Structure formats: structure tokens, C-alpha cells
């Protein structure tokens, strides 16, 4: 589905110098797969997503989406970015509606779905608020359902649950998983929470520190659906520790 071969990319800093970020990165994401990307802060995860999306152009290497070279064509994926990109002049409801609006889907068709999403993330009653009137976690939730409401085949989510309390977070994780299962999506997920990554993914891609490539791929064999308590099982904890150790050994130079 998404295939990256030998990607190299350097940021051009404001002072004109070139900062190598990604080096010889290979990655292959299959259709209907749920993969997580983990890596130290600043290693290039966000950059990677933007290259996949075609928002940033790699310096060398190939990005193929469904076999075709990525050529700044959009619309096939939904992207929830790490930073706040809600449109401040649109209310919560109208922010969430933007995806269907762009696809020119009639209102009657998308309305029930959106109302359900809003209710699921606990934002009922805030439909007419502007983003400036929301708390940090509420903004994140709006951003998430904006991406979901757009309803693309592929979801690229950059730390979607970062600012949420444990309970909300787990609920949303479950919601996302059932969406993935029911609607056969391909999901690429960036997170810093290894437990979350293991709980949700088919595979975990581990990135090294900058300039980074994919250092290691973990196949998560735990059968689905995975219940909350699997994280207290022996095998889970072992896997967690293993990934954790690999992580630490790779990014020893960070911090």
C-alpha cells in the first residue's frame, strides 16, 4: 500500500544550512495494516508522515502509494497533525464537517456520522464553541474526529491521544480499533506510549535518532481483539521490555 525506498531528506534551516533528518529509510506498509512508528523525540517521525503524504518532497528515494509514485496527489489519506491545526474561525461542528464539505458530500448524509463522533469523544454540547474556547485535550479530540469524519482509506495520526486522560484515551483507542476493523482502514500511528503501540498495532517501526532510518520492525503477534488486561500478561511485559531496551540502545546518544 505505502512503500518507501531509500528515502533521504534534509531540512533547510532558516540560516540556509541543510540538516539531514532521514537517511536511507525503507518502509513498507501493507493494506489494512495498523502500524505504529516510535522513536525518540525529534528523530523525524512527523517529517516521515509528511513525506508519505506528499506535503514534503524527499531529496532522494521513492514513495509509492498503491504502486503509483507519490506525486503530490492528495485526498487518499487523512492526517491528524501533531500541532494544533483546527481552523480557529470555525466552530467545533464546522471544523469536523470540513472533510465531507471538501468531498462535497450532502449534509444529510454526513450529519448522523458526525453527531455520533462528537458524542463518542464527549464533546456534545460544545458544537458551537470556537477552538479558542476549548481546553487542550478537547482540541485534540476535535482534531481526531475531524480526521475520522473525513473518512479516508488511510489514516496517518501523529500522537492523537497525547493530551488525553487515561480513561478517555482508552475509550478512543477502542473506538479507533473498531473503526479500523469494521471499515478496513490502513492506519499509521505515531505514539510515544509503547503500551499503546503494542496494544494497537500489527507492527511497530522503530526509528533511530537523527539522521534516522527504520532501525527495527516488531511484529506484534498478540491475537485480536486485545483486551485491556493483556498488558498485565507476562508475554506483553516481556515484549514491552524488549522494545524498550532496543529503543534505549539505539538512541543512547539522546538525552
Amino acid at each position, binding site marked *: 500500500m505505502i512503500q518507501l525506498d531509500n528515502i533521504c531528506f534534509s531540512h533547510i534551516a532558516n540560516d540556509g544550512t541543510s540538516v539531514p533528518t532521514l537517511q536511507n529509510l525503507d518502509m513498507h506498509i501493507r493494506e489494512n495494516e495498523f502500524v505504529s512508528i516510535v522513536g525518540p523525540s525529534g528523530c523525524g517521525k512527523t517529517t516521515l508522515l509528511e513525506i508519505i503524504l506528499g506535503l514534503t518532497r524527499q531529496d532522494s528515494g521513492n514513495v509509492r502509494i498503491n504502486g503509483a509514485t507519490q506525486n503530490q496527489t492528495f485526498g487518499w*489519506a487523512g492526517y491528524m497533525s501533531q500541532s494544533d491545526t483546527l481552523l480557529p474561525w470555525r466552530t467545533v461542528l464546522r471544523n469536523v464537517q470540513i472533510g465531507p464539505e*471538501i468531498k462535497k458530500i450532502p449534509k444529510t448524509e454526513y450529519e448522523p456520522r458526525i453527531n455520533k463522533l462528537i458524542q463518542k469523544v464527549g464533546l456534545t454540547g460544545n458544537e458551537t464553541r470556537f477552538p479558542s474556547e476549548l481546553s487542550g485535550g478537547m482540541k485534540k479530540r476535535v482534531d481526531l474526529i475531524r480526521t475520522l469524519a473525513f473518512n479516508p482509506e488511510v489514516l496517518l495520526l501523529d500522537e492523537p491521544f497525547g493530551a488525553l486522560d487515561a480513561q478517555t484515551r482508552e475509550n478512543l483507542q477502542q473506538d479507533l480499533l473498531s473503526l479500523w476493523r469494521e471499515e478496513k482502514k490502513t492506519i499509521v500511528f505515531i505514539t510515544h506510549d509503547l503500551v499503546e503501540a503494542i496494544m494497537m498495532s500489527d507492527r511497530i517501526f522503530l526509528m533511530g535518532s537523527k539522521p534516522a532510518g527504520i532501525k527495527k520492525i516488531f511484529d506484534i503477534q498478540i491475537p485480536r481483539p486485545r483486551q485491556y488486561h493483556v498488558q498485565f500478561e507476562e508475554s506483553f511485559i516481556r515484549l514491552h521490555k524488549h522494545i524498550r531496551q532496543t529503543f534505549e540502545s539505539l538512541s543512547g546518544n539522546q538525552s
Partner: protein
Amino acid sequence: MTLDQKILWTRISLILFGLGMWEGFCVCGIIDPYFFGQPTSICQDLWSMIIDGSIFFHTWITLFEAMAGFFLGAVFGCVAALILGMSPFWAKVLDPLIMVVYGIPRIALAPLFILWFGLGLASKIVFAFTLVFFLVFFNTFAGLKNMNQGMINTIRVMGAGRRQIMHKVILPGISPWVMAGLKSGMGMSLLGALVGEYIGGNAGLGWMINSAAGLFETNRVFSAIFALALLVMATNAVFNKIERRVLKWRPENINL
């Protein structure tokens, strides 16, 4: 008393105080009504023009010219900035040339304006246009440079075309900038229309000021300025209403 009322009354008191001082100084001979006019005489003169209706006619003419120039300037200034915003190369190429055209005194080109647009409303509208255009252009362009790339990207990723991005992200995103440009442009459209009337014409407040000044009728000049002031206040009030609506998503008060 609500805050709005308090604001209104403070404003009115200030104006009355100003007029009172002016009148007082005239009466005491501290300032010379010869040059400064005298509020009571100005009001008399204004009243006579209200009676015969002439002030409404001239005010209307000027308002019409200014508004027409304003709208044209606003639309074209905005569109030009958006087009140039799309192509940084041409923006850089044209930047000094645009500035040059902006800096040419329109009055030096008055013969050309007359040649092309005559002495009627058209030439005044064009005058106002050439001033408003640049103010809106510069602000809109600066707004584009200040856009949030993340917002654009999010919408672009959803497959939005140029027009959708423009309509759903860029235009609302630069609206605070455009509104600031329009605020400057609003005043400038009046100045442009007035200058246009100066150059030649037989109606409008600018023409009135010009002929009165040419005949050294200070009170008449100030009558026209009074009418202009009311006009400005009215358009300003309308503008503020619109601005508040357009930018209602923005927190109203920043605690500096």
C-alpha cells in the same frame, strides 16, 4: 449605564468639549476665525445647506465615489495579492514596480486620468481605487506570508483544490489582515475621491472644499469637513459592525 453607553457619552462629551474650546477661543480672539472658522457660524452654514438640501447631494456624490473606489480597490487588491502570493517568483520581480506605481503622485497623472476617465464620477472612483488597492494589497500579501502552513496542509491533504483551500483556509486566515487593510483603505478611499474632485468637477464635498477654499470661505470649508466627519463616523460604525462579525471567532480582549 452599560459600557457601550459609557463609551458613547464619553465620546460625545469629548466632541462637545472640543467644539466648546474652539468656539471659546474664537470668541476670546485667541484663534482667528478667519483661518479656523467658528463652530457657530459653521453650524449656521451647515444648517443652510441642510435646508436647501445641497449638503446631502454633495455628501452622497462623495460617498458614492469613495465606496465604489473602495470596493473595487478592496476586491482587486485582495485578488492581486492572492495571485502574487501563489507565485513567489513574480511577487519578487514585481515588488519594486508595484511600489513605484504606488509612490507616483496621482496628481501628476491628473491629465492622463482626465484623458482616460473624463471629469465625471469615473475619474474620482479611479483615484480612490488607486489608493485603496495598494493598502489592501500590501496587507493581504503580508497576511499570506503569515499564514499557518499546518492549517493549509491539513485541508490540502483532504484533497481540497486551490479554490477550496483559498475559500476555506486562506481567506478566513488572512481576514484580520485584510480587515486592517480595509480600515486604512476606507479612509483613503475618501481622500482619493476628494482629491479626484479637486482636480475637476462640479459636485461632491471635495469640490465644495476646493471652491470654498479658492474663495477663502473658511466656514464653508469646515462645513464640508463636518459633513465629511459625519460620513466617516457612519461608515466607520458600519465597518466596525462588519469587522466584529467577520472576526467574531477571535478572543475580543487581549490583556497586554
